[in-house]
């Protein structure tokens, strides 16, 4: 057979490509649900690590099914808000059909272009509110989940992840527990510019909304700082007032006893 003939060559390549494409499409469709389940469990692990539901290692050792159970039994409610700070959707939290906003990239675009956003807010039974942050690191996206105490002002915990930051440098935002632990007890200063600072020598200023950037990971730190501030700004309308209200309440509680003494 003459395999160098033009017609044969064209037909041969076309057939090969069609066979390979249909095989891949079939496999992608078959494995899709399992991949989505893995991605969902991963997101839940990160959120629950930030919210302090269980230590991070335990969450990563647990099976996907256990993670879904754990989330369903710890979540109070989940909803989405628009850029105006108003609620614009509910996310199901029942065990069988947990809904998440796991694609953060389109949301990030919506924030930057001031378009239609559905930013998720996850309220846990402990009263902690978990929100995502997302931005560009050095090589690819960086993102994370920030858990706020019920006062909506103090950070209860954080978890960061990345797609392809340099191992040993930028990847420390995920790999080194000390980095995320630094965020615990810090505050988000809603309405301030910037609301949070992840910068060189930031801790030395004594500010409660500041964490030192990582040495050797300047671009990753910058990207994460940007991610935090862009997303905190987007959530400000939703949380800022609540946080203020809470501070006023606390302030009253502190001053009222004195008033009685007088």
């Amino acid at each position, binding site marked *: 057979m003459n395999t160098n003939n033009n017609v044969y060559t064209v037909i041969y390549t076309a057939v090969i490509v069609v066979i*390979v494409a249909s095989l891949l499409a079939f496999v992608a469709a078959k494995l899709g649900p399992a991949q989505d389940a893995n991605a969902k469990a991963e997101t839940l692990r990160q959120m629950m690590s930030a919210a302090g539901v269980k230590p991070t290692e335990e969450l990563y050792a647990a099976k996907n099914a256990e993670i879904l159970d754990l989330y369903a039994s710890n979540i109070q409610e989940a909803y989405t808000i628009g850029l105006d700070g108003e609620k614009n959707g509910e996310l199901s939290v029942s065990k069988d059909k947990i809904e998440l906003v796991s694609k953060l990239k389109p949301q990030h675009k919506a924030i930057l272009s001031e378009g239609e956003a559905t930013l998720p807010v996850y309220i846990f039974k402990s009263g902690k509110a978990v929100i995502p942050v997302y931005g560009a690191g050095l090589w690819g996206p960086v993102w994370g989940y920030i858990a706020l105490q019920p006062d909506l002002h103090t950070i209860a915990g954080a978890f960061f992840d990345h797609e392809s930051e340099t191992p040993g440098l930028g990847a420390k935002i995920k790999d080194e527990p000390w980095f995320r632990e630094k965020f615990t007890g810090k505050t988000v200063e809603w309405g301030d510019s910037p609301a949070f600072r992840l910068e060189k020598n930031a801790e030395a200023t004594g500010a409660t909304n500041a964490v030192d950037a990582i040495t050797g990971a300047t671009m990753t730190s910058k990207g994460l700082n940007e991610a935090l501030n862009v997303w905190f700004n987007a959530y400000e309308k939703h949380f800022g007032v609540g946080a203020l209200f809470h501070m006023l309440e606390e302030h009253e509680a502190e001053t009222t006893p004195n008033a009685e003494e007088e």
Partner: protein
Amino acid sequence: MAQKLKETILNPILKGNPITVLVLGICSALAVTVQLKGAVVMALSVIAVTGLSSLVCSLLRNTIPNRVRIIVQLVVVAMMVILVDQILKAGEGTYAIDKQLSVYIGLIITNCIVMGRIEAFALGNKPIPSLLDGIANGLGYGLILVIVAFFRELLGSGTLFGFQVLPSGYIPNNLVILPPFALILLGCIIWVHRAFDKDLQEK
């Protein structure tokens, strides 16, 4: 025949090792050797891709039009790589490792070993020897990957497969974690390899 098969399998692991002798596939050897676990998964993925691609190309060898043979090989290799990536993503236990290896699984397609073996061996040999040749070359690659990762994880993080083995007072060496150290280690491995194998030494 048996002798020839044995040589097909052993040669790529020792005398004709794709990394230390042919110096192919260096890029991924730098990238995925920070931790042993990643290196092992990467090695297994490459073994699967080289083996299966060689097998398929060998089966097709008499039908492939010569003028487009590289393109056909590329399509077959790309398919295998995507399959491996998809399967890793779908497994509950392998999902985290796939995330950690990120783009490097996809980049197996650019690994010179895969195309090199198809072009040099699979197109001229029967399917079974081609499969073995592919697997053996993957093994030779994986062996070096695991050796490099062993030292990088041990000295760079003080752990092996994530378990702490050096005393907790050990200060991890940052240089070991950075990619250039993989080259230094690779150089040492080539040196040792050549010192033991007189045939590899230049006169």
